[in-house]
């Protein structure tokens, strides 16, 4: 018992001394890990860019399991980190518990909306970006069949799939979209072997362009697509460089910009609801030397035209998360 008391006392002392640290920003990465070449890595890049440009320091933690979410949030809040950025939709539950307890700390959650006075919710219009890469997929496809491979089956990933399918149909109404999800548990973000098999299964059904929105699983998808000589589309970060000449494009989701802005705004940042869409370059498609030979000028012109009409409101892309249905795809 005395040992326990000492331990608790020690922990309390640590907590007190830790809270004396100045208000550095903090970022919490989701289960995919900060080097997933995709979503979390984009967040990490944003934070690193901020550190390099301002010379500031930030604190970070990678979660290992679900139970650590609230714990990590509280630890950073107690330690005086401000603002605290969370990369991932799954933080919503923990954050709505924690946010009211630390009214002076600003929180930023990416990919989800939490309604609290000290929370900034950043959401991306992934369906718009996916629509554009869907158009490119349909243009590049010779078999008129394209594939989609999602990670964990959640509404957010279905939103990717739905926007993609709409884009495909917009460019080629006769095209077929095959959509598969890797799994229903977080392990689905890190199973490249399953990603490979899904890709092979889609190829056998005629797909010749595959869009992977699956975190680490996407590495297997892109690899198999390159091995089998079909095109693939990366996600979140620019993944064109992974297999030069084999990756058609990447659906960019500028998570890095969202993190960078949040860190730059500092404590007391403007809270509320922020939408990152095509208009403010929050989403888009990646063009560089690696995929330049694959994309014709005609293709770019069509996609740019669609982009302009989405921005102007002329063309509206259905958002799966608005009513959980998709006009272009059955799940």
């Amino acid at each position: 018992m005395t040992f326990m008391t000492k331990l608790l006392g020690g922990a309390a002392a640590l907590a007190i001394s830790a809270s004396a640290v100045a208000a550095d920003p903090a970022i919490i990465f989701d289960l995919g890990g900060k080097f997933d070449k995709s979503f979390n890595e984009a967040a990490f890049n944003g934070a690193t860019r901020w550190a390099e440009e301002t010379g500031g320091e930030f604190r970070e933690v990678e979660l290992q399991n679900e139970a650590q979410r609230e714990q990590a949030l509280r630890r950073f809040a107690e330690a005086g980190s401000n603002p605290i950025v969370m990369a991932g939709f799954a933080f919503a539950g923990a954050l709505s518990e924690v946010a009211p307890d630390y009214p002076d700390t600003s929180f930023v959650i990416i990919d989800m909306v939490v309604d609290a006075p000290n929370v900034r919710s950043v959401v991306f219009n992934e369906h718009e970006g996916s629509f554009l890469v869907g158009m490119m997929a349909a243009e590049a496809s010779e078999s008129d069949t394209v594939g989609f491979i999602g990670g964990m089956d959640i509404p957010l990933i279905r939103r990717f799939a739905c926007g993609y399918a709409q884009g495909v149909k917009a460019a080629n109404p006769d095209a077929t979209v095959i959509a598969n999800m890797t799994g229903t548990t977080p392990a689905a973000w890190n199973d490249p072997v399953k990603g490979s098999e899904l890709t092979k299964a889609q190829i056998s059904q005629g797909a010749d362009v595959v869009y992977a929105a699956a975190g680490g699983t996407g590495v297997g998808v892109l690899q198999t697509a390159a091995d089998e000589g079909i095109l693939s589309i990366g996600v979140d970060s620019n993944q064109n460089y992974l297999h030069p000449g084999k990756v058609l494009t990447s659906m960019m989701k500028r998570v890095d910009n969202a993190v960078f802005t949040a860190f730059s705004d500092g404590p007391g940042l403007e809270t509320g609801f922020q939408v990152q869409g095509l208009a403010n370059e929050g989403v888009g498609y990646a063009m560089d030397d690696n995929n330049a030979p694959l994309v014709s000028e005609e293709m770019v012109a069509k996609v740019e035209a669609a982009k302009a009409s989405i921005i102007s409101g002329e063309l509206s892309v259905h958002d799966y998360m608005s009513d959980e249905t998709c006009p272009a795809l059955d799940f």
Partner: protein
Amino acid sequence: MDFATFLQILDSTIRLATPLLLACLAGLYSERAGIFDIGLEGKMLAAAFLSAAIAFVTGSVWLGLLAGIGASLFLSAIHGIASITFRGNQLISGVAINFLASGLTVLIAQSWFAQGGRTPALTDGGRFSPIEFPFAEAILPVPVIGPVYEGLISGHTAIVYLALLMVPLSWYVLFRTRFGLRLRAVGENPAAVDTAGVNVIRLRFTAVAICGVLCGIAGAYLATALQAGFVKEMTAGRGYIALAALIFAKWRPWYALYACLLFGFLQAIALRFQNIDIGAFTVPVEFMDALPYILTVVILAGFVGKAIPPRAGGEPYVKER
């Protein structure tokens, strides 16, 4: 479902079943000798990492395979020392190995390659390439036999054929040789084996070492044949499915082959069709994913035959009481 689709599913079955089969046989040797091993997952993971890392550094997939086997053997040695020499709890030692592998692989990969806990993508020499059997192209026009020979039998990597060969070999070693008899006896009644003048400790260590080699091959297959590099946690629970297959197979080599093929087949169907519509209702993909475990529970509950584990399994051998 047409013939080509069916063939594609069977092809996928073989790819998915191979790592399961190797891990299952690995567990078979270990558990038949009385050492429970739930560290299959961790050993595969460590082997996957080191095989990919060495294959990348040296450019030779065979050196990678050796390194993978080495990594797996190292973890096997830890398991052996903990549970045979020091008579620790075998389950706890196995869990520790899984944790150790899960953390160490990412940590070493990060400090070695700085690519976020993964190895760089392997190029041609660093991967196992498919072996095309002779006359595969020539025989293709022959109906049924041609596509089966070309698509299903030919065109896999060397490890697939090795894994399939391991089944009759394991059956022969375990049930037709003196070593096999002793190995099985040591899992049933080590005291009797000891009385007969056979070294129990050495036999068990040998079994654990064979387990390590097979797990090493399984891990290398994941990273250097199916994939082109290591990604963290890439085994994704295959070690546990292999354990389920082992129980399903009632600790027998041929049944292990059937169990692994069945589990691989279920996975392949789930991947190909996702939600399966059979007229009246739809079978959700989650059900297909869970089916291996459900089947194992059914077998364990004794509804279909009886799965009796080796009697001395899980118990460290103490010479004198």
